[in-house]
């Protein structure tokens, strides 16, 4: 009897557990992927199929027409250029904003991790509070400040806003990473005659690849998906893709084309997905490193 149990356990026990595990994972994946599936399948339908009203049906005659329209000829209230002009604007805004807020956040975080005093803790507390204040509460003062600087509704203005709103977040992430880096490494560099900035650049930054990638991805996703700041601060010449998308979807003139809207939404979301897929390895590693080293 006992032999039978012992023989059964290693064979069936784990197999059943594994089956349950996969069933759960597949169910959760389906739950999260279903909206994506719907949006893609509907974007591939011609308008007549959409009008039949069956949202869940797969396209009978799939076509990329809606995608092409969304890309280059869908209309906002002002013009009919699709989401294409917004793509370049979003890239133009995201790249310097991500680069500056990540690098300056790293430098801030390193300085705060090195500076061990009650005042440093107070500054950390203020930065953390900065994280919890919603953007909406800060909009009006920010508009006033940027206007007085002549940067309201300019390219430099939107980048500056993204950098400043991003800094509390990036500083906190880097600070928590650098607190786990042994102090003696910085001290050794100081013994070798390296200045603070030299130590940061030559010794500390090269061991920060994982956290740099993680922070850059989080910043990129946040800035790419931003709508509010882009709408208010970017100005008409620099409207990011998210604002263009909303303008197309909300266009009251002409007929409603859900297939075009859905195609435009997928196109807008593609860059963040690409970034995740390209750097997924670093992303997982960075999060794991942060978790272990605190």
């Amino acid at each position, binding site marked *: 009897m006992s032999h039978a149990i012992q023989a059964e356990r290693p064979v069936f026990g784990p197999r059943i557990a594994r089956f349950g595990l996969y069933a759960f994972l597949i169910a959760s994946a389906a739950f999260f992927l279903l909206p994506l599936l719907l949006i893609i399948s509907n974007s591939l339908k011609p308008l007549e199929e959409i009008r039949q009203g069956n949202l869940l049906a797969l396209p009978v005659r799939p076509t990329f027409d809606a995608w092409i329209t969304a890309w280059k000829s869908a209309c906002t209230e002002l013009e009919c250029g699709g989401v294409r002009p917004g793509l370049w604007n979003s890239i133009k805004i995201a790249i310097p904003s991500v680069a500056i807020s990540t690098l300056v956040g790293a430098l801030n975080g390193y300085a705060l991790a090195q500076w061990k005093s009650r005042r440093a803790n107070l500054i950390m507390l203020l930065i953390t509070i900065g994280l919890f204040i919603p953007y909406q509460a800060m909009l009006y003062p920010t508009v006033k400040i940027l206007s007085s600087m002549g940067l309201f509704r300019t390219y430099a203005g939107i980048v500056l806003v993204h950098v400043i709103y991003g800094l509390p977040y990036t500083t906190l992430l880097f600070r928590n990473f650098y607190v786990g880096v*042994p102090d*003696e*490494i910085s*001290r*050794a*560099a*100081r*013994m*070798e*005659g*390296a200045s603070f900035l*030299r130590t940061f650049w*030559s*010794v500390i930054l*090269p*061991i920060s690849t994982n956290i740099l990638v993680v922070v850059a991805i989080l910043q990129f996703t946040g800035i790419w998906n931003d709508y509010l700041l882009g709408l208010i601060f970017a100005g008409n010449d620099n409207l990011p893709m998210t604002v263009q998308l909303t303008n197309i979807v909300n266009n009251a003139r002409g007929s409603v084309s859900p297939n075009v809207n859905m195609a435009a939404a997928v196109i807008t979301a593609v860059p963040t997905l690409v970034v995740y897929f390209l750097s997924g390895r670093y992303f997982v590693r960075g999060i794991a490193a942060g978790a272990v080293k605190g």
Partner: protein
Amino acid sequence: MSSVSIRQIRKSFAGLTVLDSVDMEIAPGEFVVILGSSGCGKSTLLNVIAGLDDCDSGQILINDVDVSGLEPSQRGLAMVFQSYALFPAMTVRRNLSFGMEIAGTPKAKIAEKVAWAAKLLQIEALLERKPSQLSGGQRQRVAIGRALVRSSSICLFDEPLSNLDAKLRAETRVELKELHETLKSTMIYVTHDQIEAMTMADRVAVMHKGRVEQFAEPQKVYEKPASLFVAGFIGSPAMNFLKGYLEGTRRFKTHDVSLDASSYGFATGPAAEEAILGIRCEDVNVVERGAPDSIPATLAFTELLGADALGWFDCLGQRFSVKLTIDAARTMQKDVGFRFNMSKASFFSAATERRL
């Protein structure tokens, strides 16, 4: 070769005194070990000498020049850290050359220096590796190499051997001593390991609660400890202590026994006071019970240590350790007598705990 003078260094953290008026004069080329248990302030003292930590008051002089206000790199020191603190993203070669690159040393000179240090420490084969690909002992060598290439006349070590296994530690200890003989630079070495202190040091500074209790040659620290703390801290097993009363007539009374202390070299004139007698395990002679001038003792158990043995006895209500030969330990009687070698004993004032 450089001299180091440490004058009246004080430092406190949040009301806790870490360093309390530390004074030390270190001669050029000397190998000084700062010895103490954790939290005694020894690493802080080293960091103050290096300039990595600030002190509240006091001066550090190198070759009679006050360097207290200078950055670490301007003091002409090199330091080996406990965790080695190699730069993780750099190869061994860059770890060695980094300081010289910052100082703007010509490339040919850097290469020459790196080659010299690598040969001396036998790490030539490791030069292109990253620190993560090295074993603990190899990292240790690279850390020492990084200190050597800067040709500093003073080298600081912060417990450099504590992360190595016992065998490697013993080997590296000998190599460090040889390195000192070769380079003749001034070395200041912090450790909690008294064997390292005894074997390597020209002089040992024993620290306790932020104070230097004694700063002397290792053998002197062992034979003539300056305070009760040093006596109890140095030596294994610990020194045996007996509380009693020292009479002006050079007799030490404890319990019902009166011992003749006339062969002991008192530092001060005769005074009657409460005192503590300290005696090492090898300075107790075991004699027959009832022999003249002996104190009765009872054997508790013996420990055979290979080359020799330790006997643990009860005497005057205290547990005593006595060094024995293996033969003596095997044939030891239960009831015996002790005779102390008073010329090698230590007396401490019960009030000040300083040596009398």
